[in-house]
Every structure is written in C-alpha cells, then in structure tokens.
C-alpha cells in the first residue's frame, strides 16, 4: 500500500472543527521524524499548527521549528509581494506600482487573485530545488481551509483558466493545476468526526475535489473515534443503575456511530480510513500531537499495523 511518504504535497482538509490542524501537525511531525525536510503551510489563519507542536507562531517567513521541520503562515499581502516580485523582478518597480493605494484596490478586482497568490506561494515551495536539483522540501503539509473555502481555494487555478484570457496569470495557473492534479505528487487527507454531518460533508468534499479540482483523496482520518467498550450484557446489567447506564449507553452509542462512520466513509470514498481515538491529556499540546502521530503510522508509511 502506498503511504504519504511516497507523496510530496499533503493536503489536509475537512469540515471546520474536526481537528484538521491537529492531524496536519501530527503528520508533519511524523514526516520530520522520518528524516524528511518538512514544511507545514498554514493559510492566513490564527496559526494553530506551530502552537500545537509547542512552538511560537512563525509568521509569514519560512521558519525552522526543529530538526527537519519548518513552518510558514501564508498571508495575502506578503504572498502578493513575493508573487509580484517574481513576475516583475524589480523591487523598485514593485514599490512604485504595487504599493500604490489605488493599484492595491485595483488588484482586488482580479477574481481570486488573493487565492492565486496564496496557493501560488505554497506551490512555489513545492517547486523549490536544492543546488543538486533535488526538491528542497521532501514533504509539504498544507493545513487547508475548511470544506467550502478549501474548494474555492484549491479550485482557483481552474477558475482563472476559465475566467481569464491567456496571459501571465493563466500560465501560472496552469503550472499550479498540473501540480495539484499529479497523483504522484499530491495527496489529499480528509479529516472527519464520527458524526453524521461531518461524515456527509467529507463525502461532499471528496466529490468536489475529484470533480472540480481533480485532486485525489488518498485517505480519510476519523478523528476522536470511540473504541468499543460496553457490550449489550453490560448495558443490561446496569439497568438498576440508571445514571451509570446513561453514561455507558452514551459511550456505546458513540462507539456504534464510529463503526457506522467508518463503514460509510470506506464504502463511498474507496480509500483507507484511519481512526484516531480521543486523546486524554491535561492540555492539548505537544504530548497530544505525539499520541496522534502514533495512531497515524499506517497512513504515513503505508504499512499495515494497528
């Protein structure tokens, strides 16, 4: 079975609130532990990943967190500047023109230009090379926006190719589309919870990625899963203890829901589904991420385990 270590761009997405950033942090840490130069990209967010890993927020510059692990928070204004400098090549020209207030307004007219430069920066990193010609980053983990925004975001190359006449932006969009659509390079990991709405939204996201962006779903992660614990006999025996029965039944019902969610995801996505059980650490920080990382070993390596 193919693991994430065989891909270079890992897109982590899902419904809001399902633990995307947690999974992204754990995957990035595991990639670094495998000895791969790993870059985590957050997108114009309140910066969760670096914090989850126990580090200070990194801002818009690529910053080293620890051995083999770097992070960057991709932000619109800085990404726009970098993009413009690449196209125009002269800093003086950039300052004269692009920092003009009127021009800045004007650039906001260009449909999805902000999304283009944000995604463009990440995919620029995916194309960076070392002096020997090898890719600079062995793994790039993208903590993508939540479902609706993720589609708008990842779809921007397609939108531009349909919207704009041929020109510099469409050439850029074509390159970006080619990276996203390359199954040898790019893999999407969809994160869900064992609840009906997150599962349904995961299926919708998968369909949108497949049909609108042509990004392949590599696997699903069922986060905060409940293991089976109470048997029917247990529940019967607790009938004389109504409060304990309520606690046990709640756990039992959620464990059953976990099974249903896994079956539904597997049947509809036709990709492996990996469970990450709930984590019980006093706070939710580095220690929690290490535990999550352990549960994601088969996803990363492709080796059967757990």
């Amino acid at each position, binding site marked *: 079975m193919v693991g994430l270590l065989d891909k270079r761009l890992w897109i982590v997405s899902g419904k809001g609130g399902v633990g995307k950033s947690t999974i992204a942090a754990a995957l990035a840490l595991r990639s670094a532990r495998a000895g791969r130069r790993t870059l985590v990209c957050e997108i114009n967010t309140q910066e969760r990943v670096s914090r989850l890993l126990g580090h200070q927020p990194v801002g818009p510059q690529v910053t080293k967190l620890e051995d083999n692990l770097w992070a960057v928070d991709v932000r619109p204004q800085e990404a726009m500047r970098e993009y413009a400098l690449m196209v125009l090549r002269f800093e003086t020209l950039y300052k004269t023109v692009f920092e003009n207030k009127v021009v800045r307004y004007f650039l*906001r007219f260009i449909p999805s230009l902000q999304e283009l430069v944000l995604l463009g920066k990440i995919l620029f990193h995916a194309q960076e090379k070392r002096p020997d010609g090898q890719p600079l980053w062995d793994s790039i983990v993208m903590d993508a926006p939540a479902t609706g925004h993720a589609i708008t975001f990842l779809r921007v190359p397609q939108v531009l190719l349909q919207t704009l006449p041929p020109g510099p932006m469409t050439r850029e969009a074509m390159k970006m589309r080619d990276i996203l659509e390359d199954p040898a390079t790019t893999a999407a990991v969809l994160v869900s919870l064992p609840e009906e709405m997150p599962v349904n939204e995961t299926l919708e996201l998968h369909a949108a990625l497949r049909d609108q962006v042509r990004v392949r779903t590599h696997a699903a992660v069922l986060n905060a899963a409940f293991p089976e614990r109470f048997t029917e006999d*247990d529940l019967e025996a607790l009938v004389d203890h109504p409060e304990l029965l309520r*606690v046990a039944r709640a756990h039992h019902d959620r464990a059953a829901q976990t099974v249903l969610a896994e079956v539904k995801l597997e049947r509809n996505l036709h990709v492996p589904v990996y469970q990450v059980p709930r984590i019980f650490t006093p*706070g939710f920080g580095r220690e929690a991420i290490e535990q999550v990382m352990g549960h994601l070993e088969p996803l990363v390596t492709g080796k059967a385990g757990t």
Partner: protein
Amino acid sequence: MNALSEALAKKRVLVCVGSGGVGKTTISATLALRSAVDGRSSLVCTIDPAKRLANSLGLHALGNVEAEVPPSALEPLGVKPRGRLHAMMLDMKQTWDDLILKYAPPDKREKILSNRFYQSLSSALAGSQEYIAMEKLWELRTKRNYELIVLDTPPTAHALDFLEAPNRVLDFLDNEAAKWLLTPALAAGKIGLSLFSLGSSYVAKTISKFTGTETLQELAGFMMAIAPMNESFRERARGVRELLEAESTGFVLVTSPGRERLDEVTHFHRLLKQNRMEVVAVVVNRVHPMPAQALWEEAKGLIPARRAKVEETLRELTVLAEQDARGIAEIQAACDGTPLIQVPRFELDVHDIGALWRTARYLIGDEALPSPAALPAAEARR
C-alpha cells in the same frame, strides 16, 4: 431570564458568528424556534446545507426562498407555537443573479450575467459569500415583517473576513480606481481599442505584465457594464452597516470550549466591539459536564470487569470536563463583560426537534451547567 432570552424578546436581528464546526447552524435554528414558540414571527437563514436539520423542521429541503415550518413539526415538543417560524438557506449564486436582474439597467443585464468576471465574483470569489449574506439580511429586514431574523453566517477562516468581506466586494465594484487606470479607454468609448495604443500609462503597462493585456480590457468592459449599479450597491452597503450597528441588532458569538478556539473568540469579540456591534452573548457549545461524585460511589458496587469499564469512562469524562472548564475560564476572562452561556454536549448529534428544544433550554437559562467557579469544590470532593 438571561441576556439571550431578553434578546430573543426584543431584538429584530440576531447574527450568529464563529468559526466552522462549533454548531452555529444548530444554535441559529434553535434561537428562531424558541422565539417563534414564544410568540414572535421568526425566520432562520442558514448557510450550511443541513438537510437533516431541514427535515427536523418538517421541510424537505431549504432553498433561497423562505419556507414555513408547519406547526405539526413542533408537536413532539408538546407546545403550541404562538408565532410562525420560517427557514431558508442562502443560495449565493441565485442571490447575486437576483440582485443583477433587479437593479441592473435592462440593456446591461445579459452582458453582466455572461461576463466572466461576474461569474467568478458570484460563485467563486472568496468573501462574496459573506457579502451576499449581509445583502440578503438587509433585504429581508427591510422588505419583510419578521419580528426576528436569525442569520447563520458562513464559517470564516479568519475573523477579519467576516466584517471585511463587504468592503472587499465593494472595492471590486468601486469605479474610482478603475476609472483612474482605464480613463484612456473610457474616454475613447471603445473597449475593443487597445488600451495601450492610446499612450497608456506606466502603471497600466506594469500591471499588464502581471495580469495580461486582455484581462484589463475585459475588466474595463465589466466595469463599464456594472457602473450604473455602483451607487445602488454602495447604498445597500451603507444600509447593511447601519443595520449591523442598530440597537435592534445583536451578535451571538458561538464557539466550543477548546483552548484552540480562544484566539478566534477573542479576535471576533474585539472586532465586533471595535465596529460598535453589540455582542449579546458568547455561547460555548458542546461543553462536557463534570460527572457527579455519586457515580463513582455507585460504580464501586459493580463486578470488577464492569466497574473497570465504567470507571475508565468516568475518568475520560472528567479529563474532558476539566479541559473544557479551563477553556471556558479563559474565554470568560477574554470576553469580560459579555454574558457567557454554556450548552452541554449531548449524547448524540443535535438534529431532531427535541434536541433543538433541549438546547434552547440552556440558551435561555431555563437550565444551566455549573460555572467554572464550582469546579474547585467538585475537585475537592473527588
């Protein structure tokens, strides 16, 4: 009676904001439901296609037009609603098209609707969802006679998006910048004529390297076609801003107790205050309650294997409750002065009408979870 029940009785508009996945849609529907039962005609506008929620309200699906929730859908509650309840789901593309059809000059409608910039604006441009949600709210508030409208807002990846989006889209429509850049073409009155054979400016030349010449030409065409609507859009935007700042409008900030949400809550809260918008309450949804001490005592009477299972479960619930209590204490400190309301995490997903009703009891203060201050005592007893 708490801050939220007062708001339900007095406000004309409640806007539910917060990040994705915290239960905004459910809270929005619950607020409208409770208001209708109490006698005010109410409408809930949702964003997410929550089909199960629609079914719970007795509707097959929600569309861009209001649908009345049949009173029979509320029968399981054992109450008779004294006001009518409507629900709808915003359809972004349809709302944009309706705006164009209504306000664009007849000779320009088709040109706008088929323009590639417009198509991107109405369906794919990030921020246009937030903008159109505000537009729709303003239209409903000024043209319908609901006593309460509850608006569920799109989840925003960044707190700033929510309030900046209308400005961003209006900038898109603002003619001034385009006029400054495209004056040569406008003066010539011929879009087909190359912008740059008219002694085009240094700035336009530079930008064309960035975007391509044809993009500028097509954009100029779009700007000319849409120009007659700019004042109308601007007027509506002013209306939206006034509505959001009005005394009869309140914001409900919905979050979950996790500490990873703290920055978002703080950001939203500060941003709303800075923009002079009233935050009625912060709702912390899906809080894990602390298991009662009596449960541990009762577990001691079970056979060992079963006792071990029960105690493991109680330990898990305790850890989760303690985590949530710390998160809530931080939210309380960060949003000092704003009432904080807790809604517990129910055994299963909140979908059916009964679960909405139970949620409503916590929202308006008929039931309450112990406040974080009670936690030390509970810990001492364990």
